[in-house]
Every structure is written in C-alpha cells, then in structure tokens.
C-alpha cells in the first residue's frame, strides 16, 4: 500500500517544527437558532493525541461533524493538511485522510466485523461493480490483499475470533473496538475518536486507552479524542481542549487544564468544585 504516514520517529522530532495537521479557525455552528459552537479555534500537530472534553451538549460531536463535513459551519474554517475542508464533500474527507469512529453504534448492525473493516478501506480499493461482479483479476487480488490487511488489524485488536459475526450481535465493548479497527483500517492521517470508551467498564477502557496510545506511538497517527471520561483523557492525552456551551474555556496540557478554575466550575459546579482539597488529592498531584 502506498501509505504516506510518517514513522513514529519522525513525528516525535517534528511535532513542534511542522505546520499543524489540522487547524480550526473561528468556527461557529448554529442550528435552528441554537449556537452549538461559537468561535472555536485550535490546532493539532502531526502525531499529537489531542483531546476535546466538555459537558454533554458542549458541542464536541458538532465539532467532529464539521470536520467530517456533515455540518456546514456558519463561520470559520477548517484547514486539514494544508487544504481548506470547505471544498470537500463528506465522502471526500475519508480520501483526504480523515477517519472517524462513531459515538452511537448500531448503524451497521448486519455487517460482519471483517466486512466492516473492508468497508473502512473503501477509499483504498478500486474495483467497481463490473470487476467485482465478475470477480476477476484485479478485483480478486485487491480483495485478497485488503482482507489480509484487515485480518492483521483484527488480530492486533483481538477481534480475529469475531470477524465473521455481524456487528449487531457483539457486546458493546467489542462493537466499539471493531469501530476503531474499521477507522484504523483506512490508515488515516487523522483519526477522530468520538467517545471511544463511553459505557465501557474500567478494564475495557484501559484496553482501549492502550490501543490508542499504540496507534499514536507506533503508527504515528494524529488523533483527536472526544471523551467524557476525564480520568482517561488526563491520563493519555498530549493536550486537552475544554468546551462549554460551544465555547473554548481552556486549552493546554492535562495538568494545567485540570487546575483551571473555569474547568472545575463547568464540571463540578461550585460547591463540590471546592471540595477536592479537603480530600487531599489535588489534580496537579495526579498529573504525570
């Protein structure tokens, strides 16, 4: 495959020197009078694991929907890999190198896990109806090669045994993982993870977090992580952006964000927000 993903070594050295892989500038999104995002700006460096957090309804998923061109922003722009995303249609974002996992599963309940990964590789395959229907030469070779690739990913994520089961019958945690595998199968430059551990047990969350770190470090894929689970975000993200009511209220390293009084207020309300010190564990202490 003609992937152009940079090696981990490259990303580490180039993180600060390069232009950002994704730049969001002054983004505003409204529907039916409600402002979902208001003047949001940030930049994600290549190889970075960038987290976006915020209470429910803060606009996190809307942000992803703008990046993957499902929503049309009212103002602002998104530059990905030097290209203005406004010029692309939804399906072209995938070819441009953006993959995304879904917050809600169940869209493709009958697709088997292996087929789901192959679907993820849609932009990397070429054959159309005629070649596919005849199943000759190139179509066959391409199917074989891509199946092999997908099976490797399934092995890596421990999904090999369920490869022929439809997604709809898998336990929730496995569905989430299959979804990640599918996004990964695309071999994206940018991976958008929409609440990858929501509804998972602690153990499952840890496994998922480990996979995310592997993707970052071994594949060098840039990732944006939207997540509720503060513990996980604080534990693995390089940088964190905090949204509240569509506005950016904080951005920075996890430790700094945790200490930010606005963040504490948005998350905890005032009364409990003051409480932590009484318990003796200040946020800063838990930061790595």
């Amino acid at each position: 495959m003609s992937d152009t993903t940079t090696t981990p070594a490259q990303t580490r050295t180039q993180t600060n020197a390069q232009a950002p892989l994704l730049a969001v500038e002054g983004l505003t999104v409204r529907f039916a009078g409600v402002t979902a995002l208001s003047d949001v700006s940030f930049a994600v460096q290549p190889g970075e694991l960038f987290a976006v957090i915020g209470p429910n309804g803060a606009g996190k998923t809307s942000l992803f929907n703008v990046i993957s061109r499902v929503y049309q922003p009212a103002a602002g722009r998104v530059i990905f890999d030097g290209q203005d995303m406004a010029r692309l249609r939804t399906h072209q974002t995938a070819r441009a190198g953006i993959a995304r996992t879904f917050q809600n599963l169940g869209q493709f309940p009958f697709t088997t896990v292996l087929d789901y990964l192959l679907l993820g590789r849609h932009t990397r395959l070429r054959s159309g109806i005629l070649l596919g229907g005849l199943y000759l030469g190139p179509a066959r070779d391409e199917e074989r090669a891509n199946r092999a690739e997908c099976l490797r990913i399934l092995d890596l994520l421990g999904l090999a045994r369920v490869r022929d089961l439809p997604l709809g019958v898998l336990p929730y945690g496995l569905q989430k993982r299959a979804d990640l595998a599918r996004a990964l199968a695309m071999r994206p430059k940018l991976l958008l993870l929409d609440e990858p551990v929501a509804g998972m047990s602690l153990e499952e969350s840890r496994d998922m977090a480990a996979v995310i770190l592997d993707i970052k470090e071994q594949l060098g894929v840039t990732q944006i992580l939207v997540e509720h689970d503060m513990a996980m975000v604080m534990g693995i993200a390089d940088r964190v952006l905090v949204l509240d009511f569509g506005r950016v209220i904080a951005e920075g390293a996890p430790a700094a964000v945790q200490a930010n009084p606005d963040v504490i207020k948005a998350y905890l309300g005032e009364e409990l927000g003051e409480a932590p010190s009484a318990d003796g564990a200040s946020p800063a202490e838990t930061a790595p």
Partner: protein
Amino acid sequence: MSADVSATPPAGVASRRAADVTTRLLGTSRRRVVLILALVAVAIFFSVANDDQFQIVNVTMIYAIAVLGLNVLSGYAGQISLGIAFFMGIGAYTATWLGGTPPTSPRAPVGLGLPFWIWLPAAGIVAALLGALIGPTALRLKGFYLGIVSLALVVIGVQIFKNAAFLTGGNSGRGMLPPAFGDTPINQQNDLFGIALSAGQQFFLVIAPILALAALFVANVMRTRAGRAFQAVRDHEVGAAIMGVNLFEAKMGAFILSSFLAGISGALFASYNVHVDPNTWDLTLSIAFVAAIIIGGIASVWGSLLGAIFVFALPKVLDVYSLVPATGIAGLPSGDVNTVIYGLLIIVFLLFEPAGFVGLIRRGRLLALRMSERNRKGGEPTPAAAGADPGGDAEIERTRLTAGSDA
C-alpha cells in the same frame, strides 16, 4: 477479551489467515454438497418434467432475474422502487427492436431480426443506460417519496409504450421472436446434437445459465467493494459517507445494475411470450416483485430465488395442482379461492416470519448453532453466546428499509 489484546499474535497466525482471506461462495464442503445435490435435482427435473412444469419453471426463472435486480436496489442498497416493471419494459422493447421480425407492412413496428446474443445484452445495456439517465433525478428522493416517484415512472412508461406504436405496436402490442438454435426457433421441438429437445427444455437451457450467471454476479458484487458500499448506504447514509462512500455513486451503481438485470429479464420475457403488450409493464408487475423480495428475503441472492418461486410459481402451482375442487367453494370459482388462499398465505407467512424465507432459514441455522454451542460445554465461549443474540433484533432489522418509515 482483554487477554486477546495483550497477546501478540503468534507469527504464524497472520500468514495462515492471509491464505484464507477470500470469502468463498462455496467455502464449506456442506455448501458444495448442497450445490451438487441441487444440480442433480435440476438435471432430474430437466429430464422428466412436462411442458406444464417447464412453463412454470422457465417463467419463474425469467422473473427471478428481475427479482435479483430489485433486490440489488431495494434490498441491498435500500432504495425503495416500484419502477422495476418500467425497466423490464425497456429491455423488452429493446429486444423487440433488435430481435423482432423485420416489418412486412409500413404500419408494422420496427424489427431488425438480429440474433439472440446481440439483443439480449443490448436489452440490459439500454435499460441500464436509461437507469443512468433517470437515476440522478430519482435518487435525490428518499423512502416512500422515491417509491411513489418510481411508481410514476411505471404509469408514464405504460403511456409511452401505448403510444410509441412504431416500436411497441401501440395498444395491440407486437410480436417477438424466440431465440434460435441455428435456424429453428427454440419454441419448436428441436434436435440438438441428435437429442430431441422440447421447447420447454430448450428455453430452460437458455434461461437457467443466465439466471445462474446473474445470481453469481450479484453475489460477487455484494462481497466486494461496490456491494459493501450499497449496504452501508442502506444502513446509514451519513455513516457511509464518513467512511468515504460516495453516496451518489453507490446509489447510481445499484440503480444501474438493477435496471440492467430488469432489462435482461424483460427481454427474455418478451421472447418467451413471443408477444409484448404495453399493459404488461404496469404497477401490478412491480408490486409482485416487491412481494418477491419481501417474502424471499431482503438483501439475499437465495432469498430472491425463493421469493420468485413463492410469488410467481406458487399461484400457478396452486392453479394447476389445486386442492380446491374445480367447481370452487361456496359459489366462489376455484381461481378466486386460490387467490384468497394465496393472499392469506402472504399475510400468515409475514406475520410468522417478517424477514421472509431467508429469515426462516437463518433462524433455523442459528437455532442449530445455539444448540451445538450449548452442547460444546466448557469450550471457549464465543461472543455470540456470551453477548447479544444473533437471532434477535439484528436479523429482523436487516429487512428494515429505513425510508422514513419510523415517522
């Protein structure tokens, strides 16, 4: 599953799997046995059946090709269509134009008298081209809106077919020639390699391979890139687009393939009947196809074949081998009694198994699977056993053609 994640796969695993990466249509020995048994059954049928039986089987196979086509569009790609009859008509008239008798009088409709192997593919191609022309407009719409617009296509089509007399013969329709082996048309008794073949047998030899090829083609499409895209579009358009599926391209692909198969079916239908009537291509025919894919099974090649049998062969079987006395029941002619029985069969069957025959088969298979799972005590639990029910919602939901029906 956490143990699985942490374990680095043994070196051999990946390569072994790599060799085993094609989903095989005949992957298991059991499937192969079933196929061989089926072929033997077909061969026996071929040898002993009489013209009545060939009549039913041949017509059903012709319809089955169009059922496959509709299943591509509605079953796999989720685009509700009542327009299949229109594309069958287009195929039929393309065939009569190319393969019909050259006109002997100035008022007779055009016909070039070209052979079978020209008009048959041409019928599919012309129908497909027309599909490509109409598709961009029709596919802007969703769900029932698309369904009703495709219905409009059928109504308008019949009007066109009735009035384009130079091609269709107008209201009285026009003739068509059957395919010929050599010089003899195959609806006559014929000798092939010294073996006497009846008309039914000859048509069977023409139609059966075409149906088999069509089924194989559709099955192949559905296990490769284009078919996966169709199904993704059906399940969730936005999700599919995010994964890089060009919605327009996928829908158009399904529409064109569907039209192609309908065109082939229409052409065969015309030559089998040796006459084409403009009223044939009406809504009733389209609805029969919708019934076939629902009763057979949405998004299934086998379901298409079973559906065609249920919808097109069963009523004939009921008529020919009726349990109803010829004098009818309670003053109702036997034909009407059969219609009632058939209507009730549809209702009862769908109440019992909304996913159609394929649902029935799947259900049986899962039952067997679960029983063997239970028997394999102490073995590794599969996620299917530990987690959700494979036979539950997901299976039933497969037939959901979203269509804004959840209003």
